[in-house]
């Protein structure tokens, strides 16, 4: 759960101390979040100077043995093998930070949680008997203790740099859990829902992207998942009053964070109506 660790211990007590070992782990995911780390261009050299990159398959084949000071975990748990592997990662990690919608809520692949996965397997694969999979795609914190969660599909690379900077300097990361609307208003972006009637998930969505879509005149897609105590029913009622069909509301809540409890609870109410249309 985000914010479980209130006081991270400073990673370095002196400038000469050994650099903390950073590992990046992939579970069921598209790799987009871990690539955000490579996408840090300007900051990448500072990251490399601050930590020893011990395990990062997207960047290097070299693997340094654990234990690791900080593990970044991308992806959800979808196979029996991964359900075992995440425990190994946890045991080998001092701090474990999950990155992205897959790791924090189960990802878009969690759409299968609400259908018959065996049916999918029989349709998709030529030899279904080779497939060993779990019925559900689940977030990492359903399996092991998570020290900090970084939301987003994908994560915001500047937020990743912030978490790493906070870790390296022994301070609290400045990662807000409030609505995305605050980011819109701080940036001076006019509300697309109020002024243009565009359906927007911003008022129930976790801050972090910097109001990317409304800045480009689009409604929020909820990539960062539910904010702190979101009032999903109220927003959905408003969408309905604006003339949006149940199926649209169901689909809007059933994307990258479909398995996030607050979104799922409400989308299931609109699902039946959606099916019948």
């Amino acid at each position, binding site marked *: 759960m985000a914010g479980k660790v209130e006081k991270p211990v400073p990673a370095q007590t002196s400038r000469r101390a050994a650099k903390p070992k950073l590992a990046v782990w992939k579970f069921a995911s598209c790799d987009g979040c871990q690539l955000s780390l490579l996408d840090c261009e300007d900051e990448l050299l500072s990251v490399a100077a601050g930590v020893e990159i011990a395990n990062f398959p997207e960047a290097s084949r070299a693997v340094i043995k654990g234990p690791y000071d900080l593990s970044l975990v991308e992806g959800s748990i979808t196979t029996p093998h991964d359900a075992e592997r995440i425990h190994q990662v946890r045991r080998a990690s001092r701090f474990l930070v999950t990155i992205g919608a897959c790791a924090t809520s189960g990802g878009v692949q969690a759409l299968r949680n609400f259908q018959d996965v065996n049916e999918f397997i029989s349709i998709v694969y030529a030899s279904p008997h080779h497939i060993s999979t779990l019925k559900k795609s689940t977030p990492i914190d359903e399996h092991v203790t998570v020290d900090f969660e970084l939301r987003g599909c994908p994560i915001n690379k500047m937020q990743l740099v912030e978490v790493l*900077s906070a870790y*390296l300097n022994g301070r609290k990361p400045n990662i807000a859990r409030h609505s995305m609307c*605050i980011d819109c208003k*701080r940036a001076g972006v006019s509300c697309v829902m109020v002024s243009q009637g565009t359906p927007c998930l911003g008022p129930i969505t976790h801050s972090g992207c910097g109001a990317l879509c409304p800045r480009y005149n689009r409604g929020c897609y909820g990539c960062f998942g539910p904010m702190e105590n979101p*009032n999903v029913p*109220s*927003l959905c009622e408003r969408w309905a009053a604006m003339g949006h069909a149940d199926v649209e509301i169901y689909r809007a809540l059933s994307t990258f964070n479909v398995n996030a409890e607050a979104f799922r609870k409400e989308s299931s109410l609109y699902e039946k109506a959606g099916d019948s249309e």
Partner: protein
Amino acid sequence: MSQQETDLEQLNVFDLSGFAKLITLLQEKGYTTVGPTVEEGAIVYDEIDSIEDLPIGLTDEQAGGKYELRKRNDHALFGYVVGPHSWKKFLNPAGLRLWQARRNGRSFEVLEQEAPAPSYAFIGARACELNAIAIQDRVFLKGSFVDSDYAGRRQNIFVVAVNCGQAGGTCFCDSMNAGPKAKSGYDLVLTEIKAQKRNLFVVEAGSEAGANLLHEVPHEPATEKQMARVSEVVSDAVAQMGRQLDTRDLQSLLYRNSGNGRWNEVAERCLACANCTMVCPTCFCSTVEDTTDLTGEHAERWRLWDSCFTQEFSYVHGGSVRSSISARYRQWITHKLASWVDQFGSSGCVGCGRCITWCPVGIDITEEIAALREADSGLSSILRTEEKE
């Protein structure tokens, strides 16, 4: 009587070319001219180069959770009310670096502050907004601590106010005694009137700086008829107020109803998204974030707009004091309309209606007070009956 004193008392009039000249003069004097302009379907406050940048011939239709731009059937420059922005974005920016420092061995060195903010000329500030600035002045300048950044920005502004000629669907400045006529807090105040299809502006100076500037703008004394138009324009706006708020006994009404069931009802609709507080021209709360770069060689302290609707806002050791949305809504409205008076000597509401319009689900502060009043009177009558028995 000197010429200046005459101008401070007299009403004068200029046309579009006079207004254009006024803006040019302000720019020549080093002011960054900011005012209403259209951006992505709304009238916002931003830099304007000339009167061409103003929302000429446009108006805004506003209701709870709804804002729409429409064409007017004239070419009025100020034929709309207020949008999602307020002048606080210039006086109390949404994000402000308070200071930055560099590591220096085992100590640190505070770096020199960057250049001061530009001097802004506010073009088209409304009466409710001048009152909002006066309220923020009391918060930032008149208490035990003076906010030096605000003070620096505040002392450099030049205000060209505009009397409202029409009110919007969510306006209730009249109820809050905060408009629609600008009474103070401006250097110049304009009233837009039409005469033979020409845009004319009746202008009055409110300060010496305003009077001095007016000298340089071609103008003529207003006629009796034009002067009469000023009061007509303002009373038209009063007649059009879309909302009303009964302020009688408001403080004690709120204080004695902290346990009213209405707070739970509104909390079912309230998204705790904080839009109301962000658009409010008087809400001033902020959070402070300390940040470092990866190397730990550079640190910065930032102040950011915050809101009493976030959980973090009331976080103390062990958790959030106001964990429910109903507690947060009650806190906001009780502070705004009641404890603000105890704290700063006036209400925190100017009746601009922004919190109603920009609430994504259209929660209406005037409706909530009316409902609370009704619930309270029902409760009082029950209590009175019980007392008799």
